[in-house]
């Protein structure tokens, strides 16, 4: 008898009204925290196909920043052996030429980066080199952008207005020519 009375008093029903709120909270939590696997990478515009090769000897030697990568992933920058880590600084110095040296680019618009690799070069190294060269330009673009009024703190990226990006890139154009690779070390 005693037991039955107890059952009568306690209503074992869970309040379901707030369940929806909890569900929505969880939903929003997952919506915010999960990231969809977005494809990221270095975007490149390849030159159109043509049978005639650009002859680099026609260019003024001081305006060409040549980077060679051999089959053993070693670098030769303007005739000297170099490391990937120093590539960025050297490229920046070459493009801007702050001390007006005779052997560096006349002006940023004339600077050309020439990249040549071997068929045996590893793709990882190629990407590293490409990344450093791109980083050099990105840093220069940001530096140039910071001199413009209203952009002193901005970083050069895709979110900027197109005309601003165009203006910056017109002053320091990214010219990278890739020569047909040599074939000494392909497996």
């Amino acid at each position, binding site marked *: 008898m005693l037991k039955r009375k107890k059952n009568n008093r306690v209503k074992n029903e869970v309040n379901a009204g707030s369940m929806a709120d909890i569900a929505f909270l*969880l939903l929003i939590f997952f919506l915010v925290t999960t990231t969809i696997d977005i*494809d990221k990478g270095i975007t490149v515009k390849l030159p159109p196909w043509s049978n005639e090769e650009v002859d680099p000897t026609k260019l003024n030697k001081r305006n060409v920043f040549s980077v060679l990568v051999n089959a053993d992933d070693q670098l030769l920058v303007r005739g000297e052996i170099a490391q990937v880590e120093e590539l960025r600084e050297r490229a920046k110095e070459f493009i801007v030429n702050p001390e007006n040296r005779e052997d560096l680019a006349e002006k940023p618009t004339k600077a050309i980066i020439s990249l040549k690799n071997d068929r045996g070069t590893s793709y990882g190294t190629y990407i590293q080199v490409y990344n450093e060269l791109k980083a050099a330009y990105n840093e220069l673009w940001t530096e140039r952008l910071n001199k413009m009024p209203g952009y002193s703190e901005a970083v050069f990226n895709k979110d900027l207005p197109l005309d601003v990006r165009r203006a910056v890139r017109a002053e320091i154009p990214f010219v990278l020519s890739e020569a047909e690779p040599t074939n000494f070390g392909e497996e």
Partner: protein
Amino acid sequence: MSKFTKKRGKASPEVSTASLPDIIFMLLFFFMVVTVMRSSDKLVDVIVPEATELTKLEKKSLVNQIYIGKPMEQYRDIYGSAPRIQLNDKISDEDDIPIFLEKHKIKVPENQRSKITSSLRVDGEVTMGIVQDVKTALRKANQLKVNYSTRPKAN
């Protein structure tokens, strides 16, 4: 008898089902967000290299993927262990690239075809020879927008 029926009538241990739809919807939304549509099974091993200067690829429908890497363990008897190209779900040669690009192109509305990007997912260990062949094939097919897929570098 009456003892039994009374007991049942009073205690009501029913779980409320009012929130079940919400839970189901939550799960539905969750899986909708998390699942990545993978159109093709991977036949080659690809670990893309790391880089810092990244751009996101925005529209998935405007991207076609080309995988380059060594065939996976279980396919090595058929395809060998040298790096190969994978288009859709087939191991292919660079000669198949124009047809592959064309097949993707017809699915894209005409006014957006100039924005088509090829995403090259290449293993870091692969040598440049095969990558160069693919690049040449892309240039010949006038597919000039290329994205070298990379992972963000952890600092």
